[in-house]
């Protein structure tokens, strides 16, 4: 059998998507369909005094908090967020009332007036005393390290809200079934939605079926939020007894759904004269919005990446995520790491200046090596490739020569070095205990997992892993739809875990199946023995111990490493900064499908360029003021330079065929690489997005 893993086989869903044949949730139109609409609060905080339905309610289904049969919460971590607010609202755009009608025009025209007694709203995270999570990581003695350092450099770095802006907005169709509910939706995590619906509707899991439709992008935005959309549609469907479609329009999606947490990160770093890091003291503050959602875990990942891929004996990271009266923030590709890695990488160039080194040399002196320990005391294996990606990027871009040559030319060159822990943090994977099933078919085998295809190529990649491990042609592997009635819970499609963790379970399962087949073809085996269905479960690799209380041990199974080099052009009239060349070197363990990996790197990089330069959520009075694609600007073909991608492989022994996670890491490096390129122009920007306004302020302020 020729190899399948490591080959860029064509993705199995490509042609149907290119011909428009693929069906998404908004393409469904079951008979008797009602359309749903969400009525939301218009104030950031207050008591609800009265709800007035200023329309003819004939033919409408109307749902409020009193219609919730189970617990009125969005079940996730803290269960503090109501599915429908009742007497109080804690942020603008908070859902209060649901309407459904067969006629979309009548639905849109229905007027609902709500009276509030407004209460003082906290909109600035620095002023909040509501702490969702406080974290502390310590290694060595920071005070002693700072005291003995030759140079101490301080700095504060900020990042703003970022909208996922998947091109398909949030949407589900909920269909009432005998005594239960089926939900067809655009989502990343079918079992998250199922669990939330069971709690909300007081139904057992066998009465709640969740089916992922083809999903038009997620990037974290469809990790937890679909539980809300599905909950609302299900409440309307159960009350009306009819299928209900709830698809957000763009403005509602942008205004109401989760975004990347804004961050303020402060660094105080002690250096030896030769540029070695002696002590790193880091404070992280994230704005969680009104409810807990995933914020504790975002903070955790942020703090665990806050010192970058560097060796340092004395470290202290103190992190808090706090509540404000703004729409809750949540998961977005990178999950806290892009914020803290931006800060440490922007800081690193200032450290280099302080000791008279160039950006490459200071990173070479401090990059993690195999055998080094992280801030939590995790000893890194032979696959630690920080120095490899740095040197590969430097050589490919002739960094030192160009950095010297471009100075003073109106062009700037910037570099960033990042790492990204793959899989759930700490003991998360042990708790998830993910399962995957392989079922023999006459033609080959079917892979059954709840891991979703959201564009990244899950179906193709898992089929390659199964084919290779089983020794059958790629074309004979089928991947089942992510339908809770069919597939086991392989965990959420998040945290760069699908290939490395779920792929590994599939690989092990396929090895068992191959042994069982003992050389017989699937058809021969089925004829002789009947069905063969094998389920595998996550197995914790040896040595992966984690102490949640003290934040000590192996925070992640392994880390990927990446180095970005950005060249920017500066327009002194408009203060615009434009990326003109970009090289990205990623070490990913093993590229199961290099073309798909390249797609992740290119796509994540351009999202990172948006984060760096363009994407600004303007908040006024606790509401998004630019909830439109017209004035929330993401990169187009003309804003994105061609990305020069280099893939390195240092296999991780416990990932599928050596694979590490790759989905999120490309988001980490672009913002600091761009800001460092701007610094190379002589402009000191410490906040992204580095819009022309911000660049102008930085320039004028320094005059």
């Amino acid at each position, binding site marked *: 059998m020729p190899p399948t893993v490591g080959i860029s086989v*064509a993705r199995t869903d490509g042609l149907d998507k290119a011909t*428009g044949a693929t069906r998404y949730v908004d393409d469904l139109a079951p008979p008797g369909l009602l359309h749903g609409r969400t009525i939301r609060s218009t104030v950031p905080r207050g008591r609800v005094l009265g709800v007035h339905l200023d329309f003819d309610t004939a033919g409408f289904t109307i749902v409020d908090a009193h219609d919730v049969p189970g617990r009125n919460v969005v079940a996730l971590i803290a269960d503090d967020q109501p599915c429908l607010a009742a007497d109080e609202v804690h942020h603008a755009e908070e859902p209060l009332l649901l309407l459904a009608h067969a006629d979309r025009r009548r639905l849109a025209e229905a007027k609902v007036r709500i009276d509030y007694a407004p209460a003082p709203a906290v909109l600035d995270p620095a002023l909040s005393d509501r702490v969702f999570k406080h974290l502390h990581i310590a290694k060595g003695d920071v005070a002693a390290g700072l005291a003995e350092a030759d140079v101490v450099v301080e700095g504060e770095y900020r990042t703003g809200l970022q909208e996922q802006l998947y091109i*398909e907005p949030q949407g589900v169709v909920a269909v009432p079934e005998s005594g239960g509910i089926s939900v067809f939706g655009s989502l990343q995590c079918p079992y998250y939605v199922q669990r939330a619906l069971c709690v909300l509707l007081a139904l057992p899991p066998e009465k709640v079926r969740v089916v992922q439709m083809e999903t038009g992008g997620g990037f974290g935005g469809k990790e937890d939020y679909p539980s809300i959309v599905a909950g609302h549609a299900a409440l309307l469907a159960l009350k009306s007894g009819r299928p209900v479609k709830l698809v957000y329009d763009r403005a509602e999606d942008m205004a109401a759904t989760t975004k990347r947490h804004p961050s303020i990160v402060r660094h105080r770093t002690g250096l030896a004269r030769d540029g070695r890091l002696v002590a790193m003291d880091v404070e992280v503050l994230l704005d969680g919005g009104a409810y807990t959602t995933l914020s504790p875990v975002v903070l955790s990942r942020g703090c665990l990446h806050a010192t970058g891929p560097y060796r340092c004996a004395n470290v202290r990271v103190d992190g808090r995520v706090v509540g404000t009266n703004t729409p809750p923030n949540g998961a977005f590709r990178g999950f806290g790491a892009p914020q803290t890695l931006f800060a440490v990488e922007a800081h690193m160039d200032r450290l280099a200046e302080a000791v008279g080194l160039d950006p490459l040399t200071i990173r070479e002196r401090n990059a993690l090596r195999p055998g080094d320990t992280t801030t939590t005391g995790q000893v890194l294996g032979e696959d630690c490739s920080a120095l490899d990606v740095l040197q590969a990027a430097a050589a490919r871009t002739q960094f030192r020569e160009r950095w010297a040559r471009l100075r003073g030319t109106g062009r700037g060159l910037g570099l960033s070095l990042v790492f990204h822990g793959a899989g759930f943090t700490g003991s998360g994977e042990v708790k998830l205990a993910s399962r995957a099933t392989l079922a023999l078919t006459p033609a080959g085998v079917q892979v059954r997992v709840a891991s979703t295809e959201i*564009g990244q190529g899950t179906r193709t990649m898992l089929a390659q892993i199964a084919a290779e491990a089983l020794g059958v042609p790629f074309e004979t592997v089928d991947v089942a739809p992510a339908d809770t009635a069919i597939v086991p819970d392989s965990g959420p499609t998040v945290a760069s875990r699908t290939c490395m963790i779920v792929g590994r379970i599939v690989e092990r399962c396929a090895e068992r199946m191959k042994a069982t087949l003992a050389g017989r073809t699937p058809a021969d085996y089925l004829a002789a023995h009947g069905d063969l269905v094998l389920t595998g479960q996550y197995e914790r690799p040896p040595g992966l111990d984690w102490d949640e209380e003290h934040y000590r041990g192996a925070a992640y199974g392994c880390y990927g490493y990446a180095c970005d080099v950005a060249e920017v052009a500066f327009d002194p009239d408009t203060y615009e900064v434009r990326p003109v060349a970009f090289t990205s070197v990623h070490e990913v363990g093993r590229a199961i499908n290099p073309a798909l990996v390249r797609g992740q790197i290119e796509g994540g990089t351009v999202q990172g360029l948006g984060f760096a330069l363009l994407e600004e959520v303007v908040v006024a009075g606790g509401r998004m003021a630019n909830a439109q694609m017209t004035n929330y600007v993401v990169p187009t073909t003309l804003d994105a330079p061609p990305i020069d991608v280099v893939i390195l492989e240092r296999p991780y022994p416990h990932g599928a065929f050596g694979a590490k996670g790759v989905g999120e890491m490309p988001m980490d490096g672009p913002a600091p690489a761009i800001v460092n390129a701007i610094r190379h122009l002589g402009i000191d920007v410490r906040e992204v997005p580095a819009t022309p306004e911000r660049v102008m302020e930085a320039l004028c302020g320094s005059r």
Partner: protein
Amino acid sequence: MRFTLNGREVGTTAHPMTRLLDVVREEFGLTGTKEGCGEGECGACTVLLDGLPVNACLVPVAHASGREVTTIEGLAAHALQRAFASEGGVQCGICTPGFVVAASTIPADATDDEVRERLAGNICRCTGYGGICRAVAAWRAGRPRTAPADAGSSATE
């Protein structure tokens, strides 16, 4: 009101200000045309009106009266579609039909910069555009310089 839809003459009784997007999707069941923003920014609803790309969310159906509308379902651009699928031009797929429709109007002798300009009205959040540009380049490389209107008969078939 009558117009030509994917080569077939059709009639509609929809209100003249109904979005062309809603008419093709709901009245004619052509769901390959997607709604991404409803404000003419993302290009997911790109269709051809008399051969030129337009955002179907901004076109009242009255504007299509007596004219020729081509959606992704009626586009004879199989080589282009295959190139999108094989060159990394497709990820989540929601923007892909719009991109394919827009790309199908790019002349064979366009430069790489012109290709990027012609596609600047379509937004993809997944690919970073690299795979899309490679797909269009591969398709153009396989086309004769004087491309026939039907890209499906090009040399890469």
